[in-house]
């Protein structure tokens, strides 16, 4: 059992080494005229067997590493994703900004619904409507105060929360 495992390990390691050694080392073609700084020379195979060298823009420099955000475009605009959404927080900021609009509309609708309940439900409907409005307004106040609550937690505990 153990011997089998060692055999497998040995085989895989030697196979990996072999594959690495035979894989083509990247040879960059030489273009004429030479490419600009932000361009890279690349050779393209032609149908008749020969190759053609030409400069390509925006090819990542593998040695220097590259930023994925530079290569994703926003929609059909020419704007890079990295320029608009540089951190997860910038996406969350948009959510926070818009969730208050949605919550305000929901609060408005809930209050109208409660008023309708008072009109249609008599004294029982009045009780229900009171509960509904209390819960809705409390919820909205908690939403509004959420940022402050986290800020207070930050101050009280001393933990740097990302606000």
């Amino acid at each position, binding site marked *: 059992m153990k011997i089998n495992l060692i055999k497998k390990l040995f085989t895989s390691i030697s196979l990996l080494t072999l594959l690495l050694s035979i894989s083509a080392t990247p040879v960059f073609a030489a273009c004429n005229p030479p490419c600009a700084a932000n361009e890279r020379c690349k050779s393209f195979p032609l149908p008749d067997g020969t190759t053609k060298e030409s400069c390509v823009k925006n090819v990542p420099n593998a040695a220097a590493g590259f930023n994925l955000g530079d290569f994703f475009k926003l929609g059909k605009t020419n704007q890079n994703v990295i320029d608009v959404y*540089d*951190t*997860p*927080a*910038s996406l*969350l*900021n948009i959510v*926070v*900004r818009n969730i*208050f609009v949605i919550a305000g509309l929901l609060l408005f609708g809930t209050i109208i619904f409660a008023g309708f309940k008072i009109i249609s439900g008599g004294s029982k409907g009045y009780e229900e409507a009171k509960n509904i409005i209390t819960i809705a307004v409390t919820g909205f106040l908690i939403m*509004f*105060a959420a*940022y*402050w*609550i986290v*800020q*207070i937690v*930050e*101050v*009280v*505990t*001393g933990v*740097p929360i*990302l*606000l």
Partner: protein
Amino acid sequence: MSDIFGKIEAPVGVAQYNTASGGDIGIILFASRMLQLVTVGAGVYVLINIVLAGISLISGSGKSDSYSKAINQIIQSVIGIGVIVASYTIAALIGLLLFGDPLYILNPKICGPNGGPGC
């Protein structure tokens, strides 16, 4: 850490309260605005109550029970608004007596290990 995740901005109203209170946590300013609103609402309610009591005084045509009822209503309204107005003074008094600082309750400070707003 914040380089990776970034900074979450305060929602619009929250940010306005924060800047209005001098860059601190604006919840205390918000609470005092709510108190002002409640005080104004109570004042309007007292006004309406006194007007209603006056109407019942006029229309009661001298019956003793409706007269005393209306007088009671007025007295209670005035006592209520008096308590509301005096509540600041009472809070300041309690703060002075128990904590040695009249603003201890009225102007609360939030303190943590690294200080805090007004700390």
